[in-house]
């Protein structure tokens, strides 16, 4: 169930260049159903900025009634958000969307988690939950450079973690797809979130595997009413012929929608 709540800022800090980690507390956390869901935040008071900003949930704890968001401050809304301080409140709508499927995974399966840039955060809770189920997880994370990289140590606690950077300042120089080939990483299922080009490459490269991807798009309502974030289905015979990223996704099986 979705709610609108003023959530309290427990901490906010810059953990990499322009990358902020925000911990919020409130009852909305109790409504989260799994990793990969997102929330829709008001970044300021009044009517400018007008629209909410969709941000994925990076980690949550029902016991503490807290969730962690990691976002990049790059536009007017997210820069305003980054200036909010501990003790202030943020108006949050959520939890929204459907997360990554985790319950259908058998114990013996090998999982590869691949994230690019600001697509990395929702994969963290996913990895934590898979790890606690005893599933073997390997991570491949892509960043622009070492200065914008984050969560590397945290992911390492859950399994082998490889990094690719555009400039080679951390891990290998190149793309996450290069790492998967180079390291010859075996997997049955792949979860990915990041730039569309990365998701497209992964989906095309591993048609025989179970691949789940998390998408983003410019949104307004976040609840499926406005039809702003629509993708066509691959299957032309599909009854609706489209999916809404906010309410049908943001996670889809590769091959469900046209990227």
């Amino acid at each position, binding site marked *: 169930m979705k709610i609108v709540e003023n959530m309290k800022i427990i901490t906010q800090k810059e953990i990499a260049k322009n990358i902020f980690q925000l911990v919020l507390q409130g009852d909305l956390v109790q409504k989260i159903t799994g990793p990969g869901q997102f929330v829709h935040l008001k970044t300021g008071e009044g009517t400018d900025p*007008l*629209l909410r900003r969709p941000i994925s949930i990076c980690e949550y704890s029902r016991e503490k009634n807290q969730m962690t968001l990691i976002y990049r401050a790059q536009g007017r809304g997210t820069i305003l958000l980054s200036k909010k301080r501990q003790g202030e409140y943020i108006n949050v709508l959520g939890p929204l969307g459907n997360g990554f499927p985790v319950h259908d995974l058998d114990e013996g399966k090998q999982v590869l988690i691949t994230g690019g840039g600001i697509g990395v955060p929702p994969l963290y809770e996913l990895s934590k939950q898979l790890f606690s189920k005893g599933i073997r997880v390997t991570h491949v994370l892509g960043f622009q450079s070492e200065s914008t990289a984050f969560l590397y140590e945290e992911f390492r606690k859950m399994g082998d973690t490889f990094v690719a950077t555009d400039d080679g300042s951390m891990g290998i120089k190149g793309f996450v797809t290069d790492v998967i080939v180079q390291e010859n990483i075996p997997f049955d299922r792949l979860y990915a979130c990041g730039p569309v080009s990365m998701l497209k490459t992964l989906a095309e490269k591993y048609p025989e595997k179970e691949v789940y991807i998390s998408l983003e798009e*410019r949104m307004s309502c976040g609840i499926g009413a406005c*039809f*702003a974030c629509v993708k066509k289905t691959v299957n032309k015979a599909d009854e609706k012929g489209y999916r809404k990223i906010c309410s049908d996704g943001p996670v889809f099986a590769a091959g469900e929608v046209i990227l």
Partner: protein
Amino acid sequence: MSKMHVSLPGLELRNPVMPASGCFGFGREFAEFYDLSILGAIMIKATTVEPRFGNPVPRVAETPSGMLNAIGLQNPGLKKVMEEELPWLSRFDVPIIANIAGSTIEDYVEVAREISKAPNVYALELNISCPNVKQGGIAFGTVPEVAKEVTKRVKEVSEVPVYVKLSPNVTDIREMAKAVENGGADGITMINTLTGMRIDIKTEKPVIANVTGGLSGPAIKPIALRMVYEVSQTVKIPIIGMGGIMTAEDVIEFFYAGADAVAVGTANLIDPMACPKIIRDLEALLDEMDIDHISELTGRSWKNEKTRYHCP
């Protein structure tokens, strides 16, 4: 009778606040947040004869105190709306105003004839002002003779009163209003969005895939108010005013300008609870203002001084 109750052609509204077409889908998403029966009415998403997918993404962009959209009338088509959406909405005690759109006059006539038969549709809203579809649409909303003709033809087949939604993208909106009144319109809804655009300074290209989109939100409220002010002094038929309404105070402003009821659009996309909040605040505000009935407020900005200071 409640001070919020409003009577309009075909419509007995428990309060004058309704969600605007295109900002509320067919109500399903909002029913998760509140009982839709508290609304004055619901203007459902524009319905066309055939299903429409709409425009490529990005379909929305933020602007100062506003937003641009170019959804492109995505909807499941007349058949699905008749068989699934309207029956689903019938669980709520709320009149439906069916927004209808098309590329030809025949399209409008076909949708009007069928959808006006639905038991919970109490009025039609003729969408002759969508700025985001290339064929027809806007032409119906910018040429007075064409607007009059489509209104007339729809009136001939509709079993319920017909409201016409006016476009602000014209030189003189009063001419359009007069034309649809002469065509037999029972009421006017106004305004639709203003055509605008944004350009990405990195890519040098328009942000919206459709290039242009319709501007909505608080940014357009002054324009909407000016136009309601003008039109309400030009025609005799009632006006459902809209354009950037976010608060109960905004509702009062639209009434003073000349509106008989209001619709809330973009606010629903920011806060799913926008309509219930505005309704609750409006009732409290009327009490505070010591107003017997909200209809007393209509046109006070231009009606004579006596009316203006009339105290019960």
